[in-house]
């Protein structure tokens, strides 16, 4: 038992969340009573924009499930059997083996799946390898579970690939897992089959499992198709995390999953399964009627809806890259290939009186009512994260204002 005060995660100063920083930035705008409309390129939530909306099939599936009156009661804590089965089938379409419904546990969004994975792996003295830049919820959950965090850099010059040499150096016998976010948040990359295979081999060599955060699964529009890490599940056990939130544009519905993609059965050991089930017994799962709608949502959403989203994202990413090219103090190492965000580098030395990425973002918010996320929030100082899952007119105007901000703050060239 821990002794003394357990402060992890409680120190207000250190609990940076993306939403926390974004709301500070927004407050900065309000205080200035700006006449410009606020443009937020900060959140991975396109549902507020008219061009991005979920499919009618999904909405009606939920309405029907509710009105059937059959789903007002508690669901089994691991999830409704039909939901587990439907997700197993959906994910198995892209795997060389079949998942069983016993491999699938229903969570309230991918965020709860993250909490569950870390809770299940934590043990005294354990550590976990997180990508940098990454998604800050992992740090927060690790803090609450007393898991030591070690960072593995993603390499901007190599398409944000995982620094596998660093894994070999940092992993030790107390390392429990490596977290891989693919398609990538915040970087917008989609890993190739070859790179994913190398990651799997490295994890296996170090005897650690992989937490594959695939919340942006299938949102890939570049040269690499989306390949689920579960494809390598027989090499190394994989915990796959995902949800409806991004592909169906319904982050507010809180329907996610925690899946053991582990055909050789490491995670099917009875004691481990028991432990997972017992933990789920004390959690509150997602609303039963939303679970009940999932089979229909997964089976009946047609390709046209998915294609439309991909096209919108691809078009937006083109606009983004083209405009960034015109801004001298910002460089984009990788055109986005997937997900909804991109990391771009600030060249602070080309700017007058801007000290770092946080300063940049606060001044941008104040002067132009544009909100983007300082890279410090995701582990990379002097970079910024821009989300592009917004209406293209929004994006264009936001980038136009950013360009104008950069011009205004550009260092004056010395005249000879």
């Amino acid at each position: 038992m821990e002794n003394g005060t357990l402060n992890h995660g409680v120190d207000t100063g250190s609990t940076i969340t993306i939403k926390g920083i974004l709301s500070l930035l927004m407050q900065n705008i309000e205080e200035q009573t700006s006449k410009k409309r606020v443009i937020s390129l900060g959140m991975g939530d396109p549902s507020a924009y008219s061009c991005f909306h979920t499919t009618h099939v999904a909405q009606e599936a939920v309405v029907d499930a509710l009105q059937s009156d059959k789903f007002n009661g508690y669901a089994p804590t691991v999830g409704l059997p039909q939901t587990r089965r439907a997700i197993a089938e959906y994910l198995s379409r892209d795997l060389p083996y079949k998942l069983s419904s016993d491999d699938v546990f229903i969570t309230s969004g991918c965020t709860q799946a993250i909490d569950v994975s870390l809770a299940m792996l934590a043990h005294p003295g354990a550590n976990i390898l997180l990508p940098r830049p990454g998604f800050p919820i992992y740090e927060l959950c690790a803090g609450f579970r007393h898991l030591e965090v070690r960072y593995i850099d993603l390499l901007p010059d190599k398409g944000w690939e995982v620094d596998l040499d660093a894994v070999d150096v940092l992993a030790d016998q107390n390392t429990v897992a490596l977290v891989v976010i693919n398609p990538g948040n915040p970087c917008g990359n989609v890993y190739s089959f070859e790179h994913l295979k190398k990651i799997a081999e490295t994890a296996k060599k170090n005897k650690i499992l992989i937490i594959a955060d695939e919340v942006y699964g299938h949102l890939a529009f570049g040269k690499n198709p989306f390949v689920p890490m579960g494809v390598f599940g027989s090499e190394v056990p994989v915990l796959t995390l995902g949800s409806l939130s991004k592909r169906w544009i319904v982050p507010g519905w809180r329907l996610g999953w925690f899946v053991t993609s582990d055909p050789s059965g490491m995670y099917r050991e009875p004691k481990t399964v028991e432990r997972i089930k017992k933990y789920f017994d004390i959690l509150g799962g997602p609303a039963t009627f939303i679970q009940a709608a999932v089979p229909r949502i997964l089976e009946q959403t047609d390709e046209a809806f998915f294609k439309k989203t991909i096209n919108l994202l691809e078009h937006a990413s083109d606009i983004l890259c083209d405009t960034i090219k015109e801004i001298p103090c910002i460089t984009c190492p990788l055109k986005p290939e997937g997900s909804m965000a991109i990391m771009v580098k600030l060249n602070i030395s080309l700017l007058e009186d801007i000290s770092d990425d946080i300063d940049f973002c606060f001044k941008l918010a104040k002067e132009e009512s544009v909100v983007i996320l300082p890279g410090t929030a995701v582990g990379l100082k002097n970079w910024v994260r821009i989300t592009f899952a917004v209406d293209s007119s929004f994006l264009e105007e936001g980038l136009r204002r950013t360009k104008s901000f950069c011009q205004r703050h550009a260092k004056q060239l010395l005249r000879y």
Partner: protein
Amino acid sequence: MERWNFGANREVMIAPSGTTVRGVLKKIMENLDKDDPSRPTVPLGHGDPSPFPCFRTTVLAEDAIVDAVRSAKFNSYPPTMLGLLPARRAIADYLSHDLPYTLTPDDVFLTMGCAQAIEVTIRVLACLGANILLPRPCFPSYGAHASSNNLEVRYFDLIPEKGWEVDIESIEALADENTGAMMVIINPGNPCGSVYTHQQLKKIAETARKLGILVVADEVYHHLTFGTNPFVPMGVFGSIVPVLTLGSISKRWLVPGWRLGWLVTSDPNGILQKTKVVDCIINLLNLISHPPTFIQGAVPHILEKTGDDFFSKIIDILREAAHICYDRIMEIPCITCPNKPVGSMFVMVKLNPSLLEDIIDDMDFCLKLAKEDSVIVLPGVALGMKNWLRITFAVEPSALEDGLGRIKAFCQRHAKKH
């Protein structure tokens, strides 16, 4: 098999060793005789009346959600993880009806059902390094979350002979300067079916204040009372002692599957704010999940527009069911009921195994009852009281009669021959 760094044999930090109601019921239900289709199972073990037609929620609530879904305005993340402002305001107003002061939206945090409110409460206490006092018998989720978070628990007694009153002396005996950051009071009572008086609650509040601990008031069964004692929220005594009020729409609206609950600071002196408990709650809520945005969106309509006729109807059915339950139990020699239930959906009854042949204890009783008569009840050991049973009466009255009849027959069959 290769050795990996993770695995079930490693000593784990998150080792949920506590029981949950669902966990225990699962075990009992495994004992059901699946080859007997002639007799439907009578579920008198859990607190979920929603499968029964007489316990249908109000159409008004369903329509509010349908409208929210179809508006397509609630598919996004809510602006804050603490809950949509209109929902928090509506809950603040709803709860303030029964309080001598007004709650503000800032006092209200939305959770996925009362279950998550319990999780947050325990995890917050664990963060602050405190420990807790729980009643015995108690709803087991408190203990399960406590063990999952390495939080020490001490139990105080509820006195069956005195309407399941809190044994104030046992609380005072448990507390010293290192113990008792909080005590949990479940009112209306689960599992006991009791409803505390204003006087009893005041005494509890004063005791907590004397010991310098806060009160967690689990009021998930708020307003589900049908005896002489009306429901009095612990928040009424919020100026005597800080109160964390837990609740949800699950029981009063019969929709436990919707997962819409709340954690509320009933603390007009702002002590929970000053002692950083509120900060801790907010930090935790920022990283765990929240109720679906469209359900939050429907909350104001549900709370403001549901008519008293719906509530009265449900209370009448529960009252009738409670009577049936009590009367039938009185006819069974090996079971005694110290207090007629006057609230919630449950009654705790005492089993006398010595009057039964080859039944060792409450768990054995429940396992055999499931197998032989397809009736599910919860063994008291799950709640900290061995050789007691918790029986749910929130089922269709005909199913209740059937189930209690089968229990009586089971007891007769197993009665010791003299």
